[in-house]
């Protein structure tokens, strides 16, 4: 039994190591191929974080849901909905920035509660529930407004444009001025949430329940864990993180429109899967998902950097990568099963 546990751990860390190596390999590849275009600059890496801050938060939520054995494909649409809500409230309703942000956070929790109730207490397949949620949120976005709304709220834009500068690693531009690398507060928020989630999942009893439920419902029932409540909470957290992700996304784009964040759910699922979260539940790590997000971001940067290939290639490349990792998981999983039988 002990031996099996050890083996499982090795296998899971194997997936994580594959992910981390893949990320560095891709990044170094980018540095070599695009060295004329300054791919190696520190700022390019920071831009990767800036552009994907929202995705990091959402991938954390997705990871928790996937650890319990579920899935949430409503995240992309909900990001669009929260951006649209922010834009609409601040620009058309005259709501203050702070209140608007709070309302969006509450909406996220409510959205999570509804989905969680349907999945955990009515035992409906998570995919069906969140598929409905996905169409609901996207449709709701269209109901609020079918035109693009740009956010001009002073407080909100001041948050969005506040730069945190690093005193090192800068470069000298053509005019001979030193430009320090910078990040936006969104990155800090995303990283804080990442660390908190990591600590909760790893060291708290509350967090370890998710693993227990996803690993084996039977045993967790025997352990006295309330399975339904645990799964319910996973969706509520995901909804809350989606709202935070939506706000971060909105800080990045400062606008709301219907087609926003299309395919975001795919990015989040791909990041989690690439980071070693098993689709069957019970195994996962937000650090892996973080690297998954970075890999996705690197692919995007690599494809967009020369500015020749169309954006469709990003979708296809991510889908291909997702397929690769899913198949890898499946192969490793079936090997493990055979090992367990023998």
């Amino acid at each position, binding site marked *: 039994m002990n031996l099996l546990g050890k083996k499982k751990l090795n296998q899971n860390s194997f997936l994580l190591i594959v992910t981390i190596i893949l990320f560095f390999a891709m990044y170094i590849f980018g540095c070599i191929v695009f060295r004329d275009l300054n791919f190696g600059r520190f700022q390019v890496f920071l831009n990767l974080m800036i552009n994907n801050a929202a995705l990091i938060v959402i991938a954390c939520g997705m990871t928790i849901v996937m650890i319990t054995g579920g899935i949430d494909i409503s995240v992309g649409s909900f990001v669009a909905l929260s951006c649209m809500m922010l834009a609409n409230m601040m620009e058309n309703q005259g709501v203050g920035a702070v209140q608007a942000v709070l309302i969006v956070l509450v909406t996220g929790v409510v959205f999570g509660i509804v989905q969680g109730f349907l999945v955990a207490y009515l035992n409906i397949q998570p*995919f069906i529930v969140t598929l409905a949620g996905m169409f609901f949120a996207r449709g709701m976005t269209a109901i609020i407004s079918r035109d693009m709304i740009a956010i001009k709220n002073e407080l909100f834009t001041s948050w969005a444009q506040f730069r945190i500068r690093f005193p090192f690693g800068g470069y000298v531009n053509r005019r001979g001025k030193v430009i320090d690398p910078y990040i936006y507060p969104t990155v800090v928020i995303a990283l804080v949430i990442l660390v908190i989630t990591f600590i909760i999942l790893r060291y708290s009893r509350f967090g370890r329940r998710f693993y227990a439920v996803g690993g084996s419902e039977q045993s967790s029932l025997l352990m006295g864990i309330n399975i339904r409540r645990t799964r319910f909470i996973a969706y509520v957290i995901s909804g809350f993180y989606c709202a935070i992700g939506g706000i971060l996304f909105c800080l990045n784009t400062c606008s709301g429109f219907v087609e926003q964040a299309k395919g975001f759910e795919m990015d989040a699922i791909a990041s989690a899967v690439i980071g070693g979260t098993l689709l069957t539940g019970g195994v996962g790590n937000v650090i892996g998902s973080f690297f998954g997000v970075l890999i996705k971001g690197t692919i995007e940067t690599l494809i967009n950097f020369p500015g020749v290939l169309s954006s469709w290639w990003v979708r296809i490349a991510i889908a291909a990568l997702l397929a690769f990792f899913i198949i890898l998981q499946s192969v490793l999983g079936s090997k493990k099963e055979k090992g367990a039988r023998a």
Partner: protein
Amino acid sequence: MNGDLKSRLGKIVHYKLFLPLFCLFLVLMVNVITTPDFFHVEIRNGVLYGRPVDIINRASELVILAVGMTLVVAASAGTDISVGAVMAVTAAVTTFFLSGGEISVNEYQFPLFPAILLGIGAGALCGAWNGFLVAKMRIQPMVATLILYTAGRGIAQLITKGQITYIRVDSYQYIGNFLPGVPIPTPVFISIAVVILVQLFVKKTAFGLFVESVGVNKEASKHVGLKSVMIIFATYVFCGVLSGIAGIVASSRIYSADANNIGLNLELDAILAVALGGNSLGGGRFSILGSIIGAYTIQALTTTLYAIGVSADQIPVYKAIVVVIIVSLQSPEFQRYVRKFRKKLEAKKAIGEVTA
């Protein structure tokens, strides 16, 4: 016990066709009340014209998809969410061959039927990829099909080079519109043909039974000697082919391949049709007839919403609510709650009678 089970099964079968028919009736009644001349059908320019004709015509793609989806749901207890994207791929492949890579053509650069077959072949290929992932690699159906759901439209865009390819030839439009001299739209014939062929195939061969058996219990079917993997794989290929046919009909309607919009949001409609038709999304027994009634109901609902003035991108909200309600009603947990509640009520009544 046996009799109890039998009566319960009888109830479910009864319930199965009752729900979709009741919903269809409800939607039609709403229409009749809001627009009194709803059932008015006339012949204009030699073709039938009217709301009912429009609903039956527009539902054709959905009927075709729902048939494929029913088999997939029955066999694998999961849904294929890539059907809309596969439609786009098929349309892109077909028009690519017909146009020879041009953006707009006035005559075929490639014979029509081989091009259609190639398009459907592409659909079958997509289905085979999904089937491989689900049946052989044992990946959850919706995650497996999520790959094509996102990548499919990208592939279609690559084939059409991000443009909308127009085929301005009359005979290409026959498939999605009217054959010369025939007052009934062609898609209706195509959907009826598909339904009859599939129904014959499922009922007259053992395939339907195999699918149900695999859906009820995969392991047990394996022990009985059924090749579960092959059967699930076959249902996905089947679904791919049917999505392909639907894609060609949709493409022919607008004599072009619009990778972004062909089959958009149809996956939800197809799942909805299956669920509305009384089929359990947990796999097992299925009724194609139920799904077809479900498909017509949804199209009637869509047309009604359009008539009320809801725009295309807002419609998913209402459909999502309908999905959640139907699936909640179907869920065994919910039924248990209801039963508990009823018992409580009865107990209360009994107590009331005793005290009275």
